[in-house]
């Protein structure tokens, strides 16, 4: 319903100025005598007949009418351009939601990198010590390499995240130590839902190098 209304509003925003433009131009030209309702076309400048007709609407007034017409036309063009731009952004996305529940905290072992949510949501859950406070808990690491956006692999034997694209490497806590990457992996907001499950919110992200890992929302104490 809402989208139908907004579509109608867009159509009106586009069409109305065009209609105004055409009507105003027609009125102005009829008054000025450049066209007549009988379908005859007068020569404006050359003949004395046109001179008489032109007296019906002064030259200055004609130009102010033109001003209205062109403003309306410009408005319609702006409306068309913005409607076209809006068209590229659909109202519904068929992608996994940005907020999801990820089971209870005791499903993850101490020191484990949980890969269950990597494929669908792009998140590693790690039960570990917070590198800043030393508290025990869980954090949600983004699986997007901070170099150029590929997806690193968790290598359990080497205990590191290794990106196949350009070789960037990260420790289990997300801190980068090798390869071209300039900064650590990002954390997502993590909390406990009312039913006792872990709730990950990918809309909020926390960057270590900006000191945002100190934010309590980036770490779930258990």
């Amino acid at each position, binding site marked *: 319903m809402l989208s139908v209304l907004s579509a109608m509003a867009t159509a009106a925003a586009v069409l109305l100025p065009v209609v105004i433009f055409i009507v105003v131009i027609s009125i102005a030209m009829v008054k000025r005598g450049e066209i007549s309702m009988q379908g005859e076309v007068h020569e404006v400048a050359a003949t004395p007949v046109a001179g008489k007709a032109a007296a019906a609407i002064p030259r200055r007034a004609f130009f102010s009418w033109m001003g209205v017409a062109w403003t309306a036309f410009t408005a319609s063009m702006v409306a068309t351009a913005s409607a076209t731009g809006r068209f590229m952004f659909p109202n519904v996305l068929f992608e996994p939601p940005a907020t999801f529940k990820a089971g209870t905290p005791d499903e993850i072992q101490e020191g484990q990198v949980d890969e269950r949510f990597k494929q669908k949501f792009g998140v590693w859950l790690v039960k570990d010590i917070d590198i800043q406070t030393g508290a025990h808990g869980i954090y949600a690491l983004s699986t997007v390499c901070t170099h150029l956006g590929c997806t690193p692999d968790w290598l359990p034997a080497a205990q590191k995240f290794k990106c196949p*694209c350009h070789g960037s490497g990260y420790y289990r806590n997300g801190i980068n130590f090798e390869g071209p990457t300039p900064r650590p992996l990002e954390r997502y907001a993590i909390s406990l839902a009312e039913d006792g499950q872990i709730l990950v919110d990918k809309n909020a992200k926390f960057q270590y190098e900006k000191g945002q890992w100190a934010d309590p929302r980036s770490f779930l104490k258990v």
Partner: protein
Amino acid sequence: MAKIIQTIKNLFQSVSPAKIGQSIQETQLYRSIFRVGVPDTDRKRMLVMLGSVFLHLHPVKVRKSGIRMRYTWCMGGITFFLFLVLTFTGLLLMFYYRPTLDYAYVDIIDLREQVPLGIMREIHRWGAHAMVIAVWLHMFRVFMTGSYKPPREFNWNVGVILLVLTLLLSFTGYLLPWDQLAMWAITVGSNMARATPFAGHEGPGAALVRLGDITLVNNASDARFALLGGRFVGEGALLRFYVLHCVGLPLVAGFLMAIHFWRIRRDGGISGPL
């Protein structure tokens, strides 16, 4: 007897190539298409150039230096030729390729294994690589011969836009095989759009575009999203890149190429040696 010989003679004369040519040129069909007869005078030559929608884009006269390979390297012409090859082979590929997650990759494999003349996709691919190289060499030649200078400065700018369009055509075509290389190359490449000033969600000034507490530029409303049709390279990106690659970009490029060629003529033909 003499009369019969004369008739046969006339008959042979009437079927001589010159006569046939002349009678063809007098038909209404020929005259409606070509207007001007054999261009044997300067005036007729000019009228031929002006009267044809294809030839009018071309300079009326070309300097002797303009057709010297060592001067032009023929790189502009080669670029245009490759564009035509890519348009033709691309059109053929479109008969088999479906831009969906289920079919894209297997259709590419099938184009090689199951479709007759399995090198069609390779021609398209190598043609694309060659076109990028030819465009660079063309620009290098134009730069080194100073052909970007007035009165050709506008045409240089059209050429720069055409270079960008060529690279964008390469970029969008890169995704279509939908293999690992394509997928991650476009992931990496499209991440650059995150840094668009004001329009990319990690770009400078993006945080300023807001209504109260709500930031308007996020990963579902920025320039990268408009390009990919999603927050990551997925089904939406494949379809958008396909449409841009097959319709959007070639249309704009074709339009600009017409301007580019016409401006060569308007700006006094191919530039002379320094």
